């Protein structure tokens, strides 16, 4: 079947959306943007294609009366097994890479011992991986690096201790190798992995196997890819396959909420206020100026200053009942102002509440410069996940523009990629 793909290469994450020619979303994929843009694009695309397969399976199983009501379980089982197969494959790659990296004077004469230690570690890792992918277990992360890393630490230390070997030796090899593995585009044999996952699973019944296999046999043909986002110029696409993120966000928001007229996107690097017409065409936009003040990066900076995780800021700010007035949304000055306030004895939650307000006030100014807020209003971007920011936004929108519908989609992180995929469909189908 013909697939249309949008890839949004953001400063921190890369997102991909796969669509069919009827503008139905088939799959979504995400990965962290690395220094290697090609890989980030390839990984996110593959993730979205995997998700597409799962959608196709779901469609196929939908017609099987015997599994009615059990499709979700079957699919999660299949995905779990698939991820496990994928994990083992990458683990194998990591092991080979580690072994290949045992070179240089540091290892002179000790190669054999180190290899044995590595083999021991990886063998335990393989065994314990089954637990990570057991039914009902919630995985801590979707990224190989996080999953493999934690386990490597614990098993590696144990193995080295038993062997009387310094752990830092294999840790050093690991550090070098994980980057290589991570930056290697995933191997393309997705169907094979699904077949192996099927074999691993419990779904032997032919009523399941046949439809899944026939869904697996549908070729996913990459018809047109559109790239967008800050890294778009680095994407390995010809120029006509690249669209500005402002247009992609506008169109993406329109696809999610066809009635939307105003879109606010607060991303890591910038804030955009966009007006779209009834068919999703951007009519006007305004952006923050050169500095990224008031964007996600600013929040990241605040989190660092306060020694907190980014995701903890919103919840803490929600606890405030007295907002401290923060004057500066300038990233450079905010740190000083923050320390000042803390020194004055203000509570952290109150300061944070003030900071969130400052960010949203800045966004409100961008919105008003773009022509104000019209019904319906859609809020996208990373900051849309922050409940304290959303609370302030709702308040200020109501004060300034009255009762407009405010849309926040849980999948809003995919807005740009969705717009890109829509452009891809339109490029070919229209």
């Amino acid at each position, binding site marked *: 079947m013909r697939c249309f793909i949008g890839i949004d290469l953001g400063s921190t994450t890369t997102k991909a959306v796969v669509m069919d020619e009827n503008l139905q979303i088939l799959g979504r994929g995400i990965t962290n943007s690395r220094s290697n843009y090609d890989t980030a694009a390839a990984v996110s695309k593959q993730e979205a294609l995997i998700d597409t397969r799962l959608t196709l399976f779901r469609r196929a199983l939908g017609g099987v009366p015997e599994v009615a009501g059990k499709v979700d379980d079957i699919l999660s089982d299949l995905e779990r097994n698939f991820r496990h197969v994928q994990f083992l494959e990458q683990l194998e790659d990591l092991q080979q890479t580690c072994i290949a990296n045992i070179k240089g004077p540091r290892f002179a004469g000790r190669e054999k011992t180190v290899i044995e230690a590595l083999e021991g570690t990886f063998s335990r890792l393989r065994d314990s991986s089954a637990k990570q992918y057991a039914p009902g277990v919630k995985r801590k992360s979707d990224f190989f690096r996080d999953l493999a890393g934690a386990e490597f630490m614990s098993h590696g230390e144990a193995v080295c201790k038993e062997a009387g070997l310094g752990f830092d030796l294999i840790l050093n090899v690991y550090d070098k190798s994980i980057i290589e593995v991570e930056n290697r585009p995933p191997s393309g044999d997705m169907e094979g992995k699904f077949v192996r996952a099927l074999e691993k699973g419990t779904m032997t019944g032919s009523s399941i196997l046949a439809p899944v296999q026939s869904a697996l046999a549908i070729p996913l043909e990459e018809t047109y890819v559109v790239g967008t986002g*800050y890294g778009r110029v680095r994407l390995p696409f010809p*120029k*006509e396959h690249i*669209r*500005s*993120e*402002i*247009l992609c966000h506008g*169109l993406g928001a329109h696809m999610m909420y066809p009635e939307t007229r105003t879109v606010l996107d607060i991303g890591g690097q*910038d804030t955009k206020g966009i007006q779209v017409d009834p*068919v999703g*065409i*951007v*009519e*006007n*936009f*305004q*952006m923050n*100026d*050169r500095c990224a003040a008031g964007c996600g990066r600013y929040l990241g900076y605040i989190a660092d200053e306060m020694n907190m995780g980014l995701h903890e800021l919103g919840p803490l700010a929600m606890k405030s009942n007295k907002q401290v007035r923060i004057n500066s949304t300038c990233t450079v000055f905010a740190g000083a102002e923050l320390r000042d306030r803390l020194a004055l004895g203000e509570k952290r939650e109150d300061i944070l509440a003030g900071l969130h307000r400052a960010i949203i006030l800045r966004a409100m100014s961008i919105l008003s*410069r773009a*022509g104000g807020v019209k019904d319906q209003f859609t809020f996208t971007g990373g900051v849309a996940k922050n409940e304290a920011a959303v609370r302030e936004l709702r308040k200020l929108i109501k004060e300034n523009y009255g009762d407009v519908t405010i849309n926040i989609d849980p999948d809003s992180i995919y807005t740009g990629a969705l717009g890109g995929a*829509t*452009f891809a*469909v*339109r*490029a*070919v189908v*229209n």
Partner: protein
Amino acid sequence: MSKPEAVKEPSMDMQKAMIARNYEAITSKHETGRKVSNTFVPGNLNELLMCFDIVNNLPEINAIQAGMRKASGGYIMEAEKSGHSEDVCTYVKADIGQMSKGNIAPNGKPYPVPDVLMLSYTGCYTFMKWFELLREEYKCPTLMLHVPYEGDGHSTKNMRDYIVKQLKEVVIPGLEQVSGVKFDIDRLRQYLKNSAKAEDDLVWCLEQGKVKPSPIDAYFGGVYYIGPIFTAFRGTEDAVSYYEMLRKEVQGRIENHQGPMTPEGTYFNDQKYRLIVEGPPNWTNFREFWKMFYDEGAVVVASSYTKVGGLYDQGFRHDPDNPLESLADYCLGCYTNLNLPTRVDLLAKYVEEYEADGLLINSIKSCNSFSAGQLMIMKEVERRTGRPGAFIETDLVDPRYFSAANVKNRLESYFQMIEQKRRGGGSKTVAA
């Protein structure tokens, strides 16, 4: 690695030689004994200064020169160190900072102390403060010609008389005193005749932006076209020949269906978007900025910045038969002296007449005179013409305020937005 040299056309070489001669005249004042006046571009009285053999030195142009040579950043920091605020016009700070760094002109020689400051235009109040600072520094006389603001969109006889009166009673006697030369109105008439001739040719060139493909870029190319006429050359024979030459070049391009030449030496023929641009350009990254346009196929067919020193395309000419009155009219009609509705009218008219895709505003962080009201202008022009506007932000000569990625992002979005509107939806290729 050094950047490749910009490719120049004959008229550019000629202009370069003219500018070099003027810098030589300024910096050799002690040898030649000629008097020097500092003055501003909008509303300058070049022909009048020439009547007294006074050499014209323009601090704004010096700041632009410093910006293009990448020296302005250091000067600005220097000025800030001595207490000038971050938000002040960076032409001022580049000028002031340059003083504390030896005040060296582009020819390597120091700028002399001016003999007079000729403050002939007040559409921008920064000018007054700027010359206050220079007067402090140089301890030289200041001649002020007060130009009433066209608050309701047009000038009156009263305003004109008021200016003529000042010319007669303050400016001319003042210049006579500084220079020791007696004023001769016939000399002025002769210079004004030259001005009008050059102005005719300039207007012809600028109006060729209506041709498709446009043989000129009326913003990036335009700032070169207006160079002589807005500075120390209006009224000279040199300016007359310069504009004759320019006109021939533009004519030649029209005959060959060629667009303007880019700094890379290629003709920009493949024009996809026609824009009207409002606001001064950025000088520190001038070529990079320009490239963002022609790389995407955007040509500027008319701009307001090429009118800062006179709206010749709206019919004004210096007039030898009414010399002082025409100087007055000239000062009154400079772009920055116009009220916002008049600017909106003009820009909307350009969008229509030049069949542009829309209005792009380059808002300058440190220029209040241009930047105030610009968003309103954009919205209003959008509303009237039905064509999309866009807004970018840079600075004149402060390199800290040029964010290439940010500007490029907005420009590309704007061009794609135009494209999308044309097609009423997604598009297969960007090419029109």
